């Protein structure tokens, strides 16, 4: 195959996938609101997002662990992120959702106030977490800047880790 032919083929494939070059630099996230702030979780850590569902209380756990619920035959813990982040409990309403996250074998549902949107943020627009919270145990992975908003990106694996 001549070099020229290769060049043409390369050119064609480049044209077909114009985004290919910078896909690696983009992080896909799902944004949601808890209290007054917007947070985001990498889309790959999310198994599904469901409407609120009845759950069963479990004794001897911190208040933010609401209990367990049945998702198609699996018993899954339910964690209220409002309570986890030190906010007051709020009644579930039409916008409340459970985000079911999965990292490795760990699965848990998280209660959020409402969803915002799926986000694509360029890596260069994501800054590190503020120094004051930037420790190993921090739930915060970084801070994304998108136009006029600032979005806190959370670590899914840390959220799924039992800390009591």
């Amino acid at each position: 195959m001549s070099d020229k032919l290769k060049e043409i083929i390369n050119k064609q494939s480049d044209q077909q996938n114009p985004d290919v070059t910078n896909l690696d630099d983009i992080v896909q996230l799902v944004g949601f609101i808890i209290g007054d702030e917007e947070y985001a979780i990498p889309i790959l850590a999310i198994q599904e997002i469901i409407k609120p569902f009845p759950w069963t209380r479990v004794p001897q756990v911190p208040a933010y662990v609401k209990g367990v619920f049945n998702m198609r035959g699996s018993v899954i813990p339910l964690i209220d992120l409002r309570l986890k982040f030190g906010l007051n409990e709020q009644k579930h309403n039409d916008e409340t959702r459970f985000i079911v996250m999965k990292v490795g074998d760990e699965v848990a549902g998280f209660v959020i106030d409402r969803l915002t949107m799926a986000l694509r943020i360029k890596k260069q627009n994501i800054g590190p977490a503020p120094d004051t919270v930037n420790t190993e145990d921090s739930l915060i992975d970084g801070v994304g800047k998108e136009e006029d908003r600032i979005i806190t990106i959370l670590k899914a694996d840390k959220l799924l880790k039992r800390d009591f």
Partner: protein
Amino acid sequence: MDEFQEILQDFLVESFELVEQLDQDLIELESTPEDLELLNGIFRVAHTVKGASSFLNFDVLTHLTHHMENVLNKARHGELVITPDIMDVVLESIDLMKALLNTIRDTSSDAGIDVAACVIRLDKVSGGDGDVPKVESTSAPAEEASTEEISVEENAEEELDYDNMSDEDVEAEIQKLLAERQEEDKAKRAAKIAAGESVPDAPPSPDEVVKDTPAPPPVAKKAKPKNETPKAAPPVKKTATVEQTIRVDVKRLDHLMNLIGELVLAKNRLIKINDDVEERYEGEEFLEELNQVVSIVSLVTTDLQIAVMKTRMLPIGKVFNKFPRMIRDLTRELNKKIELEISGEDTELDKSIVEEIGDPLVHIIRNSCDHGIETPDIRVAAGKEEGGIISLKAYNEGNQIVIQIDDDGKGLDADILKDKAIEKGLISEKEADNMSDKEAFLLIMRPGFSTAAAVTNVSGRGVGMDVVKTNIEKVNGIVDIESELGKGTSLKLKIPLTLAIIQALLVGVQEETYAIPLASVLETVRISIDEVYTVEGKSVMRLREDVLSLVHISDIFEVERIMSSKEYAYVVVLGLGTQKIGLIVDTLVGQEEIVIKSLGDYLKGIEGVAGATIRGDGGVTLIVDVVALMDMAKNVKVSAINSASNAEAVSTEKTKASDYIVMIVDDSKTDRTIMTKALKPLGITLVEAGDGQEALSLLKQGDHNFDAMLIDIEMPRMDGYTLAIEIKKYSRYKNLPLIAVTSRTGKSDRMRGVESGMIEYITKPYSPDYLSSVVQRNVNFKSEFLS
């Protein structure tokens, strides 16, 4: 190579089975050394293993088994009497054989285990001079084996170097040997027939033998079968009992079990839906059909579940089999005379449980031998038989398997046990005084407890018995000890049949439901509140002759008391070994088959919760961990059954008319509008609900503090009476005025209204003013708000 692997697998499976059998037979042989049948059987095993291993080039194994075979061969020809010393050597060689088989299984080669010492001993026993060439796993010792063997067979003249023979020569040699052997056989058979014995079919013709046996290498193997044919011939007895089996990967069975679990859940759900449908469409024709289908599905599911459970069942004999050998070794080691009696080895248990109980049983039996059975002189002095008896029994008892280990040894001394426990700091003296003998016996299961004055090789390191307890509890089993000083000890292990699906008693407390494994439930009792007494800060009740300590389930599981306690409560009596406790619950929901699900890593290790299950309605119910609950109950002070917090005053100061909130419950939009219109002039806040359930969930949400409720009686889903009864269950709504607004005017309707807790009864039609005045009176409406 694949073919080789396949053969290897078959070889291993067969060998392990044979070796297991071997152990048993040898023990039996020791007591009846003349039993020729037995000897032949044992010899065959050694021989088969040897033959196969030489074919597969496991030279070390071949070398070892060959020498075993020699000894056994001599024994069965009456040239050697099996003495305990000889048996020791033989057993040792069998151990080595097992080790070799294990190595082969793990590494596909038999290198790494030195059998030389044992072989020399075997050789000495069989009359040799102990000068046996050492075999390396890599070398090919076939010729050694054959020469040796033949010398034993007194066919010394056939000491030929087979390796150097051409194929034809070997073939010829085999033919010659076979012919010779057949001659002998014929002679023997003739002798036998003369003696009136039935003789199995003639041995296969030489040609067949040559074809059937693996082609080239081990001539030794071929030389042998001829030797055994007369007596061993095709094992007729065995073919009769051969079971048709398929080996299945356990993972597949586990998967199947999981699927069945899902099916059981679906079945439960179907039954629930069927009940609901039945209620709603009472009398409809299709109901019967639906009923039939549901009952068939549930029947088949149950059968299927049992069938799959059975595929996972193994006879407990698998575990029991190793004990005769163990007892034998122990008796020699400890210089005691102990006999083991086994019964019920056919009893079947789930495979995973069979695997779990092996170790505990070893510990228990070692203990019985070491601490239980006395030495012969002490036994004689105590007026007992010289030899002790340990009996190992397994039997079904309801949903459980009981494994009972009895010994007729010296028994447990409760006082010594207590002293020891105090000395070791396991219990306080006060605790010791309060202990019954049975509780004292259970002390031996505590970690760090050992009564043996001297630590022996056998037991007494103080680890054994608590391992027993933890292992048995791991499979949801319980340990029970009975003992009589001087007479013996009896240990009972009660183990559930299977792990994944259990029968459970569902109990309700407030609005929650919990599942209690039925195996731990002894009985349930309905009590009235004043039957509960308080002793030293603990609740107790009398149960027939006993005093039963009580604990309220809501104290264990931190249940919020939103509903007021009733006059009556139910006590679920839980039993675990000798411990008993009464668990107070609000309601008994029923008995159900539940599938145990784990709570996952995030929530694991919650005290008192053994897992969760999914119910017919799709909800999750937690399963009570009875063992942990018993422990937790000790730390719970005064069960607060009487001290349910009474309705907190919800009447906050009203500053304007709209602070008054009234709920209107009616299924008819028109009626609701009429009531709204009638009450509007008052300026109070009105909340509407379309039926009883909606009203109840509005109440539960607690968004409003209602001052009164107007309730229609005829409503779908939940009628007015039921709603009133439900509302009155909540202590905070005890004093909420409920006003019935209905067209039902009968006296009995009014009575029902009063019974269910309604305080006013307005009949339709009514004048708006009348309604307004009734509401005003009931909410204590301040007149200044009237405009």
